[in-house]
């Protein structure tokens, strides 16, 4: 994975005992394991951790990833790690490239909450995927693959999954509007976008499906032969499936390669063709435009929120600087709603 180990390692004694605890849990699903090595914290916030580790048994060393929340810390506004694991298992079964979930931590393990999954090689950094020579040959194929993957995700029956939040478009927009008004000085471009969207709401009876919620360039691992894994299910919910198609087209995830609307690597027509060919519903380009516009507004409000919470964060400079990217969404909204020289 592209994540760099961060300097958040606990003191040596605590780390040893954590490694011992981790080994005990690993042996629940892999009894032959002799030891674990290279246990290192990857990126992660205060309430959720991601660890990398190498498991040594009789065969070849096996790299794994541990997603974990320490006991007692609530996971706010996101699905639980147990639900995240269940979604990844369902996705793998449905043919979505996905890390394999080895084990979901149980209460009796006394190891907080979380799960172990396989380590998948691949690039996660969007700006490399859109520019690096290494991916030049695969880039034209990624939009179609993304469409196929989304069709498979949206075909998963939510009835067989843990309870997920249900979010209708009007509810999401109402929440975004409240947050924007609470956190920000008036922004005329955002007001324009909210008004534009409210006049073009998708029909309220649109079929609700499993929605990944953060399906974009940056949340999938890409190799020179294609998408190797879909990651980051923590914003998954049951909602309008077109939301996922619009989000991967949203300006922010093009990493400044603005003429490739799908993730900075591909064309909308290929995304739609892949989606429809793999069993997804017919895509109306105007509906896609609605969700792409909402995507820029959503990321804009999220940027504002980063600034609002920066002082309480352990990364206040980074969060504050993300807040100053709100204007990127204003220019993308204007390019959608009031294009110049059109």
């Amino acid at each position, binding site marked *: 994975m592209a994540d760099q180990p961060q300097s958040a390692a606990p003191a040596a004694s605590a780390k040893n005992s954590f490694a011992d605890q981790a080994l005990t849990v690993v042996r629940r699903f892999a009894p032959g394991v002799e030891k674990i090595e290279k246990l290192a914290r990857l990126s992660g916030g205060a309430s959720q951790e991601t660890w990398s580790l190498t498991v040594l048994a009789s065969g070849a060393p096996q790299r794994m990833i541990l997603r974990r929340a320490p006991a007692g810390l609530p996971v706010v506004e996101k699905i639980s790690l147990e639900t995240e694991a269940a979604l990844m298992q369902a996705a793998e079964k449905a043919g979505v490239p996905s890390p394999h979930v080895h084990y979901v931590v149980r209460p009796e393990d006394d190891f907080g909450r979380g799960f172990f999954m396989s380590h998948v090689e691949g690039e996660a950094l969007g700006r490399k995927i859109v520019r690096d020579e290494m991916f030049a040959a695969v880039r034209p194929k990624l939009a179609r693959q993304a469409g196929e993957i989304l069709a498979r995700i949206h075909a998963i029956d939510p009835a067989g999954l843990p309870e997920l939040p249900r979010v209708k478009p009007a509810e999401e927009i109402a929440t975004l509007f409240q947050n924007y008004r609470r956190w920000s000085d008036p922004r005329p471009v955002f007001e324009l976008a909210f008004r534009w969207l409210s006049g073009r709401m998708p029909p309220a009876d649109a079929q609700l499906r499993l929605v990944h919620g953060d399906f974009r360039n940056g949340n999938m691992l890409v190799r020179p032969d294609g998408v190797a894994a879909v990651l980051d299910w923590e914003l998954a919910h049951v909602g309008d499936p077109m939301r996922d198609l619009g989000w991967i087209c949203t300006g922010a995830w093009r990493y400044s390669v603005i003429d490739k609307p799908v993730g900075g690597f591909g064309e909308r027509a290929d995304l739609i063709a892949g989606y429809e060919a793999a069993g997804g519903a017919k895509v109306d380009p105007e509906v896609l435009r609605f969700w792409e516009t909402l995507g820029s507004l959503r990321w804009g409000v999220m940027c504002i929120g980063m600034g609002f919470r920066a002082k309480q964060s352990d990364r206040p400079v980074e969060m504050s600087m993300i807040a100053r990217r709100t204007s990127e969404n204003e220019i993308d909204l204007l*390019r959608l709603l009031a294009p*110049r020289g059109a």
Partner: protein
Amino acid sequence: MQDRPSPIELLAAVAHFLRTEILPTLSGHHAFQTRVSCNALDLIARQIALEPAADAAEVARLTALLGHDGTLESLNQEIAIAIADGRATLETPGLADHLWATTLAKLAVDQPQYGSYKREIARDAKQ
């Protein structure tokens, strides 16, 4: 009157020091956060340089649009409410131009490397 070096010159000196002498000694989390901190110093310098003229132009546009003067904060709030109410729309003469000019002025400070901004600036340069 304050003496030189000016705030912009001091910021440039601090950012240069951090980039050339401190950053190479760091890795991982601290290298990343220091790089972001240097970007923040650059942003502040751009804002000091560009904000006064941009704000004055924004007030002038809003005064023309709304037909009266006021502070930038109050005029901006008034146009935002007019858009939310539907009294001001993209068909309102001058509104789209105002939104574009204001947004480009923000990007010039916030993120002048952003792809959409560079495209729109290149369009202006051609005309």
